[in-house]
């Protein structure tokens, strides 16, 4: 059998596949006009301004803009109603555990009795400890709502924004959930840096750029 010239073969393969690669690149890269000479940004020259990486979260762009209007400067003392909420647990009876303990696993297994009719039959749990209604944190989870945010939701969102703004270096104030002048200034600074409309408010576009979804 004739020995194959692999070097020649390889050249052929490259020749066949070259046009294909060209097509592929024209589809997947928006054709840099010069063809193969796509200028990669040089790695050595640092950009004049270092941009922190921010992941924009698709923040229900078509959803309602719930937090844009939030302007609470108020202190938290006005949220007295929530204290009853937060004490929900302790107020019940002092005991945290469900008041009904699990039903005893009735005749507990000991020696298997000889007669099959007498063996222990697992019974469906007769009293399941009440499942604590955990499903709904005060933010109502991810359910988009057109309603005005509750006081708690507003504090939560402001706090989240403050944390992100602090991380990005726009905010130096306390993380207190208050829409203070400092927070607004930080929002404006961030919006300016991101090329957004400088509203100083937590609008959808800004929250999305901050990586906060709701």
């Amino acid at each position, binding site marked *: 059998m004739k020995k194959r010239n692999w070097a020649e073969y390889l050249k052929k393969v490259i020749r066949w596949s070259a046009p294909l690669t060209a097509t592929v690149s024209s589809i997947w890269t928006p054709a840099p006009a010069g063809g193969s000479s796509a200028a990669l940004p040089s790695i050595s020259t640092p950009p004049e301004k270092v941009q922190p990486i921010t992941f924009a979260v698709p923040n229900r762009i078509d959803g309602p803009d719930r937090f844009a209007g939030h302007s609470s400067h108020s202190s938290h003392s006005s949220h007295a109603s929530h204290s009853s909420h*937060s004490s929900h647990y302790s107020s019940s009876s002092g005991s945290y555990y469900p008041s009904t303990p699990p039903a005893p696993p009735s005749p507990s297994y000991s020696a298997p009795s000889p007669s099959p009719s007498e063996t222990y039959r697992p019974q469906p749990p007769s009293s399941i400890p009440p499942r604590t209604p955990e499903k709904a944190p005060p933010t109502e989870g991810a359910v988009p709502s057109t309603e005005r945010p509750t006081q708690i939701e507003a504090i939560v969102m402001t706090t989240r924004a403050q944390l992100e703004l602090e991380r990005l270096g726009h905010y130096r104030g306390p993380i207190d959930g208050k829409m203070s002048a400092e927070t607004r200034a930080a929002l404006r600074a961030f919006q300016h840096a991101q090329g957004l409309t400088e509203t100083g408010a937590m609008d959808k576009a800004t929250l999305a750029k901050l990586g906060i979804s709701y």
Partner: protein
Amino acid sequence: MLPLHTSATVSDSLSSPLLKVLDLPEALAGWFPFKRIAVRVPADGPIIDIEALRAVGFSAVVLDRPLPQGERLPLPALHSLRNPSVVSSGDVIRVHAGTGQVAVLYRRGANANNLFVTEQCNSKCLMCSQPPRNIDDRWRLSEIFDLLPLIDPDLEQLGVTGGEPTLLGAWLPELIRRCKSVLPKIRLHILTNGRNFEDPVLADSVADGVGVVVWAIPLYADVPSRHDFVVQARGAFEATLKGIYSLVERGHSIEIRFVLHAQTVPRMERFAEFVYRNLPFVSHVAFMGLEPIGYAKVNRASLWIDPLDYAPALERAAWYLHDRGITTSIYNVPLCLLPRSAWPLARQSISDWKNVYEPECEGCTERPRCCGFFASTGPAWRSRGIKAFVL
């Protein structure tokens, strides 16, 4: 080794003993109920207004600085942890407000998380690492039901241990169901002696576990006399085998566990053949080094054998099964005590909260692949073969 317990100072009474510890950004994301969260407030981070945390409804804060006497915060504070690295973000802890005892019930990112369901057991194995107590500890199950919603929902592996979990009776299937509903990706690894599954009704009741649960069942010999002696229960061998068949009949998957000590290794190779002939359907066979704790300490005289002396037989038994299509693993035996031919079956296994290395292991090139030692391994349990592999 990172222990699961430490102590702390608690500034006020807590509304709930079980708390999910989270950094503030994650805490605010709303994935866990606010009233079950203790927010970590690091001293080197931004200034966080605790009053705002209280207004949101968080349960407590965890400080990494001591709280000066007389300083009061709007929320109960957990501070001055004796070993601060025990508690980190994502963990679920139980805090005893009176004594300040902190136990980690769920550790984010650990190689093993276990639900300890009961201390009761119907066997009394010679080498039991968790000696059973016949006490009413049903509170453990309520605590577990309370814990489950605080576990990261993407968790994929969870062990269930005891005690004997089948003593939960009808609560065992309920536990399986709740794990499945709160942790959609979960695979449960339930340690049981399988004896109670002899009863078809109990075996039927765990139908929800098919495809989710691996039943890890110990079998210590190919003959009843030896197995019954090791587990100190007459008739256990037969009941366990019936239990295994009963589960397999219903589509469950089984792991057989064989603990290596002087009472079991003499029949190890015959045991391997027994498993191949009678239980070829099992999904995994685990040969496990002894953890020298609990009853094992008391029974050292009848249990101790230097792993170096059983290693050749172990290598043969393990490969016998593996070659016949049954996945086989060797756990808890350091690599320096095994012949190199057994290394492919050796797993790096010991839970990270009880895993240590000996001084000799310093500089050993195989350390990254080696299981190391149980923290409980004292001088009485040291093999003469411990050595470092060096280049």
